[in-house]
Every structure is written in structure tokens, then in C-alpha cells.
């Protein structure tokens, strides 16, 4: 399938932003981590999106406290996801596909829950 219709939307463009002051601070810390620390200390997140992008997305969408809990939950389920998750090809090689929606949809849309 070829065609320029696969355009991703950045999380910051999301209409339901609920970050607040604490969320903004957390996002700046995550920016610092992903641009300065991550290239030095990390060997690369096995999941897509990476944990810092996931945390940023969660904080922007749900606010500081729920977003932080979701980010911690991501760290917790990462080992299991490597075992059970779906592998996709990304710009940075093969990664486990684990978007925020895969872990929160059942909260808002019961039809996605079996």
C-alpha cells in the first residue's frame, strides 16, 4: 500500500490536554531525559512508543497523577509485553507495539474489553 496518508499526530496536538503545572514540569523533565540522558545511558526502549514518549502522552492526556501511574504501569508491564506483544517495524528497527490506547481503551470503551 503506497500513499502519503499515514500521517501521525503528535501527542501535544491532542485536544484533551490535562497536563497542568505539574504535568508541564514532568514533561520538561521527560524532554531532558529523552534528549540528554537517554542517548547516553539507555540501550534503547524495546517498545514503541518509548517509555518516555508514552509517559508524556499519558500525562498530557490524563493529567499528572493518572499519567504517572500509567507510566509506572508501562514500566511494570514491559517485560510481559516483550513476551506477548506484537512486533512492528519502526524507524529504529523492530519494536513491540504498545501504544497508550492499548492499555486504556478498556476504561473508556467497554466494547474493546472481552
Amino acid at each position, binding site marked *: 500500500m503506497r500513499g502519503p496518508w499515514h500521517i501521525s499526530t503528535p501527542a501535544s496536538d491532542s485536544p484533551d490536554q490535562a497536563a497542568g503545572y505539574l504535568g508541564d514540569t514532568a514533561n520538561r523533565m521527560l524532554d531532558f531525559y529523552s534528549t540528554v540522558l537517554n542517548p547516553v545511558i539507555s540501550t534503547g526502549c524495546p517498545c514503541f512508543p518509548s517509555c518516555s514518549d508514552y509517559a508524556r502522552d499519558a500525562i498530557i492526556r490524563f493529567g499528572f497523577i493518572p499519567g504517572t501511574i500509567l507510566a509506572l504501569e508501562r514500566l511494570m*508491564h514491559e517485560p510481559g509485553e516483550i513476551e506477548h506483544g506484537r512486533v512492528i517495524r519502526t524507524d529504529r528497527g523492530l519494536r513491540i507495539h504498545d501504544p497508550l490506547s492499548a492499555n486504556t481503551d478498556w476504561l473508556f470503551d467497554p466494547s474493546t474489553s*472481552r
Partner: protein
Amino acid sequence: MKRFSWITFTSILVSLSASGSPPPSSYLFAEYLRGQAEYYRAITEYHRCVFESDDPLLREICLYRIGVCYLEGKQCSDAVTILASLASRQSNLQERYPGLIRYRLAEAYYCEGQYGRAAEMAAGLVESPIQDTLRKPALYSTVIARTQSGDIAEALACIDQNPDAWENPSGAQVFRRQIAAFNTIGHKKPGLAGILSAIVPGSGQVYAGRLRDGLTSFVFNGIFIAGIVSAIDSDHTETAWILGFFELGWYSANIYNAMNDCHKTNHLAWESHLNTIILMHGRPFPSVDDSDL
């Protein structure tokens, strides 16, 4: 693929030439592109055809093909928009090929994840006067869409009410058993997993079948709780408060993780069973031959 596209291309050229005025080159080129799976570029050419052609039927065919190209390219919302607008009006194409547009619209709804709506539309097709070549695919699609929307009883009723629609009685029985199995798979209870993890961090994840998640949760929570106990024992109250703050996050995440794992396990079991059915019986909306429109 190339051979198929040339056969389609030639057959359309012959059929349209026989019916009167020759089709515009944009239509023929669009058909060729569609045969090459170049859906995005084909859509542009179909739009050119709509713009150029004076024949209302050909314009409807081009609009229909645009919808199909969107479907093939997994642009489900665009497919719904264009096919819904086509289905809502009285058209020559609907008279010529009854049910085809609505079948594709049901497929677009399914593609978009609106399984209930797709099932209703496909079921409506089975009841209405349509060609026999569409009836069997519509029936099968109704069953799969009803299953996807979680309405297993209705899906089973649909199989029972149309015993002649399947290849043979034993095939129908196998299909029925496979659909009925959805009632018994993926029934881990998220609430129970949450309670288990609230009592012993990690146990809910083990109940959900994710041992690694359980171990991670147990170790993280264990370290923080041990740190808090140790800090209290050595009279470092501030350290205990800081560790407690972090532990609250880990503990909440642990409960959420157990529930999330349950949903994921159930979902995976469901998807896996559905994929088995699709591998055995074909895609949810079987392809229909619309090359001779």
C-alpha cells in the same frame, strides 16, 4: 497481479465499449492502478473520471471504486463517508447491482470498528432482495460482525436460521461450535485480579497469566516496602515518607497493571480464536466479484 489487472482492464474496456460511449482514459488508467494496488493514485484518477464523465452510471461506478480503494487502503472513515453518501441516494448502480454498495458500506463499518452497525447492515442485506452471489458472503459477515460486537447468541441464531447457506451440514456444525466457543474463552476477571494484587502485589498478574509482570511488580513493591520498613526502624521518618510517596505510585500501578493484564489476556484469547476462524473460513467480508459493473 499484473495479469489480473490486465484481464480486469480489458474486460472493463470491452463491457463499457459494448454499452455505448467509450470510457474516459482516466477511468481505464484508474482501473489499471487499482489492479496494481496503487490505491492512492487510483483515487485521484477516479475523481478525474467523476469530473470528466457525463454518464451518471459511470460517475457512480467511479465513486463506488473510490470507496473500495479507501477500503483496500484501510482508510476506513473515508470509505464510510463516500459509500454512505452513495448508499443514501437512489442510483443506477444500486438498481443494476442491488446490495453491493450496502455490502461494501457494512465492510467499511467493520473496518472502522463499528461491528454492531456492520452486523445490522449485513443482516439487512440477507433479508432484502439481493443477488445470490452476495447473500452467502453477507450471511457469513453478519455472523462474524455479531461475534465481534459480543453478541454471540445472535450470531448463533443467524447460523441456525440459515442452515442451507453453508457448504455442508457438518461445515455449519463446525462453524457453529467455533462461534459458541467464544462464550467460554477469555473469562479472566479484572476485578478479582485487582483485589489479588492489592493483597499481594504481583499475584493478580500471575492470575492473569503474566508471570513476568507479576515478578516485576512484586520486586518493585517489595524493594520499596522493605525500604520504608527499614527507614522506620532506623528512625529516618522523612526517608520513609519519600519512599512511601513513591510506593503509593508503584502500588497503584500494580493494581491497574493486574486489571490491564486481565483485559489484555482476554482480548488476546479472543483475537486468537477469531483469527483461527478467519483462517479456516475466510476474511470477515469475503471478496465479491464486481469487475463487471
